[in-house]
Structure formats: C-alpha cells, structure tokens
C-alpha cells in the first residue's frame, strides 16, 4: 500500500514534469504582422494583416502560421472586396491560410541566448484550399529572452489557382506577390 502511494506520487511528479516541458518548449505568438505586396508598372498594392497566430516548437523545430484571410486590409475598399471574392481568395469558403514547416537547421539556433539566427524552413503553404511546398529563410532574433521572427518570400498566385488572363487585374496585380511575416513570441 505504501509502495502504491510512493508510486503514484512519483507518477504525478513525472507527469507534471512532462506537462511543464511541453508548455515551455512551445513558443506562441499572437502579435504578428503579415504584409502582401504586389508591384506592377500600373500599380503598387499592399495589404496588411495583424490577426495571425504562429507557433514554434523549440524541441522539434515545427513552425506554424495560421492566417485569417478576411483580416487583410487594403487601402481601397474595392481591392479588398476583389481579394475576398470567389475568383481570387474565396475567403468565405477558405477563411484561413496556413503554413506548416520544419526548421531544418534547428541546432544552429539557440532560443535561450541573445543573438540573430537564420532558420531554414521547409514546409507547405495552404492557400484557398491548395497546398504547395514553400522553402524560406527566416531571421530569428532573441533579445532579453524574447524571440522575434521575420521572413520574406514570394508566392506565385497561379500556383494556388488564382489567375487573371484579361481585364484590369491581369495588368495591375503581379504574378508573384511578396509576403513579409513578422511575429513576437511568448
């Protein structure tokens, strides 16, 4: 009986330890900024989103970004409406875009020591229900124990079934859109 008691205490202690490590290993950010930038001779278009959520698992290197698509704000109302529409991002059907990747050089990054690190991320982007591989470099900056991330890459709209063959959008929207993502983790 006494043994059982000791055993159960030990079990609780071990479980508690496990619970603690999982929490500590996961960095969560809901302080994010994502920017779309498209440039053509006709027009520069920019849209901003501050409502995405991101996580980095320090022990496995898993890196995730989940983006509510209707949160993109354009300077002009008409552009925003076009962006949301069925032929473009179809946001009422696909309200979220997601990036799921792995940091492939995890050993180069020390999340607990101040410094600037380059993370190589390999993964998949899902936009409008279409999933494509995206490999990118991200800059991870650790200062005073706070982890920040910044990355910039291009996405080809046609890869995700977004194509304009004629009309204004075909000459005002670039084929490749620059995406900048920033996050501060806790």
């Amino acid at each position, binding site marked *: 009986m006494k043994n059982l008691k000791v055993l159960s205490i030990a079990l609780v202690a071990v479980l508690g330890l496990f619970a603690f490590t999982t929490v500590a290993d*996961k960095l*969560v950010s*809901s*302080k*994010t*900024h994502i920017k779309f930038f498209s440039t053509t001779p006709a027009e520069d278009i920019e849209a901003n989103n*501050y*409502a995405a*959520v991101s*996580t980095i698992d320090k022990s496995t290197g*898993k890196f*995730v970004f*989940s983006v*509510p*698509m*209707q*949160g993109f704000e354009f300077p*002009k*109302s*008409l552009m*925003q*409406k076009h*962006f*949301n*529409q*069925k032929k473009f991002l*179809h*946001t*009422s*059907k696909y*309200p*979220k875009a*997601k990036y*799921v990747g792995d940091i492939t050089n995890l050993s180069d990054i020390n999340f607990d020591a101040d410094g600037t690190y380059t993370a190589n991320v390999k993964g998949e982007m899902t936009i409008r229900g279409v999933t494509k591989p995206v490999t990118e470099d991200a800059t991870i900056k650790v200062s005073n124990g706070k982890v920040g991330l910044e990355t910039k890459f291009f996405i080809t709209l046609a890869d995700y079934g977004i194509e304009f063959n004629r009309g204004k959008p075909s000459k005002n929207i670039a084929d490749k859109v620059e995406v900048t993502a*920033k996050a*501060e983790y806790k």
Partner: protein
Amino acid sequence: MSKKKVIKKILLVVLVLVVIGGAYGAWMYFQPHRDVQDTETDYSLKASDIVQEYLTDNQAANEKYLAADGESKVLEIKGQVSEVSEDYEGNTVVLLKSDSAKAGVKAFFTQETSAEAKQAKVGSTITIKGVIRSGASYDEDLEMYENVIVEKSKVIKK
C-alpha cells in the same frame, strides 16, 4: 435634320455616357471602406455562444457569418475579459473568454478605439461591436484552439 446636327447629337450622347461611366468607375474605385461602427448590428450574442456555434459546425457558422466580399457580419459580443494585450501595430486586443472555455473571441481595436478598450479590467464583463474575420476551431498543427477574430472593434458597454 442635317447630317452635321445628327453627328453633333451622337457625339453629345457619347460624351455624356463617357462622363457617367468615368464617374461611376471613379466612385467604385475610390469608394471608402465600410464604417463598421456605423453599420447596423447583424447579431448580438455571448462570446461563449458563437464559440460553441463554431465548434459544433464550422462550415454552417462560416456560411452564416462570413460574406463573399469580405464585408462579413457585424456583431455585438458580450463576454468576460480574460486578457488585454497589444497587436503588432500597438492597438489594443481584448480576449473575451470565460476561464473554463476552450476558445474565446479576440477583439482587435482601432487607433480611435484602443485607448478606451485598454481600460478593460480582467474579469469584468463588457460588450464590444466589430466585424467577424474568422471563427473558432481546433488547429492540429498549432496544437491549440483558435479564437473567433473580430476587428474594427469598439467597447459599447462596460
């Protein structure tokens, strides 16, 4: 009518059409964003109710709340303040969520409405008005529940 007069008339009609078309195009192009606070509220509900609706049937909730052109439903949401923070732009973010709930409603405030929202006390109950951007769900990659996102918010009752 002489030929000249007919041509003159046609030209006049064409000119009027071009002006109307141009004005319409410009109006469309430069139309301002919808003022969410000036828009009539579509639904008034508790934070826990909309979260439950989303966790029960995500697709049905999306169909109910999200509009194809992005001008989705304007909601008044009442809930318990669980966290007050800032977004990347420095605007206030308030999470309305009861302690036992899996997910809540995250309200993003604007430059104009942030200062007031920042005063919200954790544990108190407030009502906010804003536009829904996305619903609540469990994300297996994030390994956590995502909150309902509401933007352009303003505190309407403390």
